[in-house]
């Protein structure tokens, strides 16, 4: 099976640039011009998931690290932003409303730094990255990978949710942090402000996509793919794979944190229900359906699946989960490279029809058969 890798970039780079410009134009002009205020706000939420998906695409698709706990990093970014907004809404020297209801009258020490934007805003990225770096350094060094790593991250998501729910007085418990009416002095119900958050989110998605693409085009990208292909072999070339993996995992966590921070003013809530095991698995499903073989696939997956979820779950409230599960099974079983992979298959088929000089799989098999001595 052909896996994604840096060698996939042999096509004319202008195709990619023009494609990116067209999509950016669609996001920045077409979507705001055609969608209603409600539709645009919903689309902004999808873009937040697309940012998470780009990060998962980088860590899992390119680096082979399947994290089933990405919701934790999404939550850390979301809660960091939520804490700041809650304290802004409460006013100086006061505690957020849910704390008063739980009998907490004094601002907890953990909350104090989040009174300041200059701490809270960097924290939405730095905290998830630091947690991922610490976890990654511990587990990758011990060569924990594959299913074991996936289970470990899933356990982390479960533990995080339990902690959030258990510490109701400090975290808002099951309800999470809600009732955001203002952010940075802006009325969140005002369509103009919602439109502005849309442009910010679209801009961040574009920047994260370009960052991931730039990373994959660099020598670091080749090393990351090499680590995925054969971690042990990378050691024999004089590199420490732990460092390479920690970098990708942390960047992916940073992207999830950033998405969480944008999600809060857009959707108006951050709660354990949005970042536990099930949401974390759904985040991976977005990438699997869109295709982890490229960085475009996760974005396509996030937008398509979220759109389908919104449309179908309204009409068939209990049917969507079954359909999502079915889609996942079909993609893994019959199109493991996802929607983006289907485009790749189509392109290869077109190349063959045009009589491209590239060898066909049949030619390749024949050549290998001729050259390899049977075992």
């Amino acid at each position: 099976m052909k896996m994604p890798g840096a060698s996939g970039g042999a096509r004319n780079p202008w195709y990619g640039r023009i494609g990116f410009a067209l999509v950016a134009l669609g996001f920045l002009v077409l979507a705001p011009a055609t969608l209603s205020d409600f539709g645009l706000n919903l689309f902004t939420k999808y873009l937040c998931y697309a940012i998470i998906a780009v990060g998962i695409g980088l860590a899992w698709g390119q680096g082979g690290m399947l994290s089933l706990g990405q919701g934790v990093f999404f939550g850390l970014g979301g809660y960091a932003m939520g804490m700041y907004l809650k304290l802004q809404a409460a006013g100086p020297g006061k505690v957020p409303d849910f704390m008063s209801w739980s009998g907490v009258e004094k601002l907890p020490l953990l909350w104090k730094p989040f009174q300041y934007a200059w701490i809270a805003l960097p924290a939405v990225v730095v905290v998830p990255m630091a947690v991922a770096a610490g976890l990654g350094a511990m587990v990758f060094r011990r060569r924990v990978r594959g299913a074991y790593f996936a289970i470990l991250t899933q356990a982390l998501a479960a533990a995080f949710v339990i902690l959030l729910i258990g510490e109701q007085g400090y975290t808002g418990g099951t309800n999470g942090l809600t009732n955001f009416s203002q952010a940075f002095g802006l009325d969140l119900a005002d369509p103009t402000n919602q439109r502005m958050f849309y442009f910010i989110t679209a801009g961040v998605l574009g920047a994260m996509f370009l960052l991931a693409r730039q990373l994959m085009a660099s020598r670091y990208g080749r090393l990351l793919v090499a680590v995925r292909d054969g971690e042990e072999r990378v050691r024999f070339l004089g590199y420490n794979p732990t460092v390479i993996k920690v970098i990708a995992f942390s960047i992916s966590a940073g992207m999830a944190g950033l998405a969480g921070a944008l999600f809060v003013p857009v959707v108006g809530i951050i709660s354990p229900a949005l970042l536990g095991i099930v949401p974390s698995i759904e985040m991976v499903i977005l990438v699997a359906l869109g295709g982890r073989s490229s960085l475009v696939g996760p974005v396509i997956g996030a937008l398509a699946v979220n759109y389908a979820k919104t449309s179908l779950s309204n009409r068939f409230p209990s049917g969507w989960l079954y359909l999502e599960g079915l889609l996942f099974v079909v993609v893994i079983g019959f199109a493991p490279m996802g929607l983006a992979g289907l485009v790749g298959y189509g392109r290869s088929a077109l190349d063959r029809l045009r009589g491209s000089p590239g060898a066909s799989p049949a030619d390749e098999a024949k050549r290998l058969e001729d050259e390899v001595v049977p075992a």
Partner: protein
Amino acid sequence: MLRVEGVESGYGRTTVLFGVSMEVPDDALVCVMGRNGVGKTTLIKTMMGVIKASRGRITLDGRDITDMRSYQRVRAGLAYVPQGRASFPSLSVRENLQVVIETSPHGVAAGQAALDEALDLFPKLRKLLGRQAGFLSGGEAQQLAIARALVTRPRLLLLDEPTEGIQPSVIIEIENAIAHLNATNGLAIVLVEQYMEFALRLAQRYVVLDAGRVVAEGATEGLANESVRKLLAV
């Protein structure tokens, strides 16, 4: 150059090597031989730091490398081509080689020069630079694996069964390349090999393992000795 002194190692609680000692002189090609399961690959992996030695000492040019990790040993001058001609299948042949050059501890220019030398040694790879490594034949992949190890500019190359499952014409190409590296470039090589004729043609010295212990060693002429050959019989 490389000294292995009283090394014990194995997998988990199972000890495979029992007090193995051997030496690889400068510029020498030493072949490690023995039947299946006697510990040849374990020995080479222990030299490389893939398996930790529970006892004994390994030194490279007098420097103790026993506790170094694999990637640190590469920086110290070791290179390792494991069994199974491992490449990075998703990367092209060019990228498989570039991965090494771009952060070469000797600098990019030195890495590029080493890459050019490696491609001169295996000219077939030049024609395959744009091909995805996962689509190489066994012989091509083995040549790529050796070329990639050479780009790290090693002082000692560890080769684990480079002829395994490869057709005779390609074995000759690999043999010529190994001979050139050792005779012309003065690269010290440890070769784990079961194909005795191949080893005889290349090596100056041999070490025979049996049940995790060194049971015979010496100059390759000694391999003609009937008692030594018995140790290698399947």
